[in-house]
């Protein structure tokens, strides 16, 4: 018996549960009002639970989304009726949402609308990003925690706090007004960027890459460039960056689903169509006056796309981009990548000095990529013992199963 159809069904369910969890909460919240966010979340959870109880015995319904929405809505209405609130509140709410002028009318993509709805400017940015990833993309607290260099418990608490704020201040998940659209745009771009990185490098679990998430994020990024209200140089730069990155998704794992580091990727497996799309977006991005971090990152990615091998890339130009990016973001992760670029450009001693200076950074303590990069560079410097210790540190930092297998392989070369 082949594993094919099984895996397909599992992927369908994966996508469905993750995506629908967010959508259910968003639609219910819109219908029931923001003060009912908890009710919306509870009933969405219950609908998924109902699905999980009945689908194993009945199979997946023809229209699973509609099934979930009907069940969730019915449960919510039942609960509200039970609270004797429905008769009064419901018709008023339905009319209110039906007559709100729609500033997102130009945005026909349901997913993108949801991201805009969730990116509420009234709550602090980090909370806003985390909440949107949770509600609109259905990422768990554990997955989001990694992006913000914190633990799952702290992230759960932050998500709860953000929801409480929305409830306490009676913020609504209604359509943003035309004036609200622009301030939300930069958060929307960040959310798309972060969602892509969770697909590109999930960080835990059995897969080295979750392509469906990455491609969903790319689709949203490209949609942003299509809509007059959201398009512009930064939107194009983001779409360029994600296109270039997405072109390499297939080559990040080998046929045995083992992680393949960048230098050893089979460049023939890079998707030429996506690279071409990347350059198209990049051309439009460069025509704009502004320069965003996405411009610089897309610039770096484009130089890799042009090079026949990792070694042959224009490392001097890449270093210039990294310097500009470091100045712009002051991010330790950018500094980490900068150090790797310095090593690739031939200066391993300079790279290790830079890395050692970063070792106390909160984002990099226990960070698998930091320790792996440090180990590889120590290895190149011929400091085998130090390299082995560093590989061990990487091995005991959290990562996906394929990451772990890769590190085991590297460690075994020291035996």
């Amino acid at each position: 018996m082949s594993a094919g159809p099984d895996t397909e069904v599992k992927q369908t369910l994966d996508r469905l549960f993750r995506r629908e969890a967010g959508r259910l909460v968003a639609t219910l919240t819109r219908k029931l009002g923001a003060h009912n966010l908890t009710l919306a979340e509870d009933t969405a959870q219950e609908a998924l639970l109902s699905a999980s109880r009945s689908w194993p015995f009945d199979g997946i319904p023809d229209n699973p989304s509609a099934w979930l929405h009907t069940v969730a809505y019915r449960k919510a209405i039942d609960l509200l009726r039970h609270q004797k609130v429905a008769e009064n509140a419901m018709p008023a709410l339905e009319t209110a949402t039906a007559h709100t002028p729609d500033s997102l009318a130009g945005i026909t993509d349901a997913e993108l609308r949801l991201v805009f709805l969730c990116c509420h400017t009234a709550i602090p940015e980090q909370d806003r990003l985390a909440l949107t990833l949770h509600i609109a993309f259905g990422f768990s607290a554990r997955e989001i925690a990694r992006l913000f260099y914190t633990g799952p418990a702290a992230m759960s608490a932050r998500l709860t706090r953000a929801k409480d704020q929305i409830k306490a201040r009676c913020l609504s998940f209604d359509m943003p007004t035309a004036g609200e659209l622009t301030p939300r745009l930069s958060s929307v771009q960040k959310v798309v960027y972060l969602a892509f990185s969770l697909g590109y490098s999930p960080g835990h679990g059995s897969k080295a890459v979750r392509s469906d998430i990455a491609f969903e994020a790319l689709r949203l990024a490209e949609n942003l460039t299509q809509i007059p209200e959201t398009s512009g140089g930064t939107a194009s730069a983001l779409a360029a960056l994600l296109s270039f990155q997405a072109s390499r998704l297939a080559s990040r794992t080998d046929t045995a689903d083992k992680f393949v580091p960048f230098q050893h990727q089979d460049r023939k497996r890079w998707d030429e169509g996506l690279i071409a799309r990347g350059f198209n977006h990049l051309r439009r991005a460069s025509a704009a006056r502004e320069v965003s971090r996405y411009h610089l990152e897309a610039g770096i990615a484009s130089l890799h796309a042009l090079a026949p091998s990792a070694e042959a890339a224009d490392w001097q130009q890449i270093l210039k981009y990294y310097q500009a990016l470091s100045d712009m973001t002051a991010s330790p992760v950018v500094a980490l990548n900068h150090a790797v670029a310095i090593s690739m450009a031939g200066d391993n001693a300079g790279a290790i000095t830079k890395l050692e200076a970063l070792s106390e950074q909160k984002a990099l303590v226990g960070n698998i990529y930091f320790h792996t990069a440090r180990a590889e560079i120590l290895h190149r410097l011929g400091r085998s013992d130090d390299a082995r210790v560093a590989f061990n540190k990487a091995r005991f930092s959290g990562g996906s199963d394929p990451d772990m297998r890769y590190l085991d392989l590297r460690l075994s070369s020291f035996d």
Partner: protein
Amino acid sequence: MAQFMMLLHDKLDGFSALSHDEMMSVIKEYTAWTEKMIAEGRFLGGEKLKDEPGRNLLAGTDGIETHAGPFTETNEMIGGYMSIEAADYDEAVKIAKTCPHAKYGRIELREIDPIK
């Protein structure tokens, strides 16, 4: 083709230690299996039973008595059933072995007696 009933015995609290994500992945396994059986035209149907004690009706001295439980095995209960089509017991066993429940619980496989 003969018809077989798979009685799915659950260990009580067998799944209670699982996180939400782990639970979801178990459910995906079951659904994937059912979808595969449906695609192969073998799946005849099934129902999940509620995770709570049922009623046992027993003939006592004063007529029929109703008891909540007890179960024949105190540490497990029937969580649901599924029926499938197979040529014979050999094939039915082979198929039932691929069902995720074989890993997570106990399957009692019985041939349905078609009364003609």
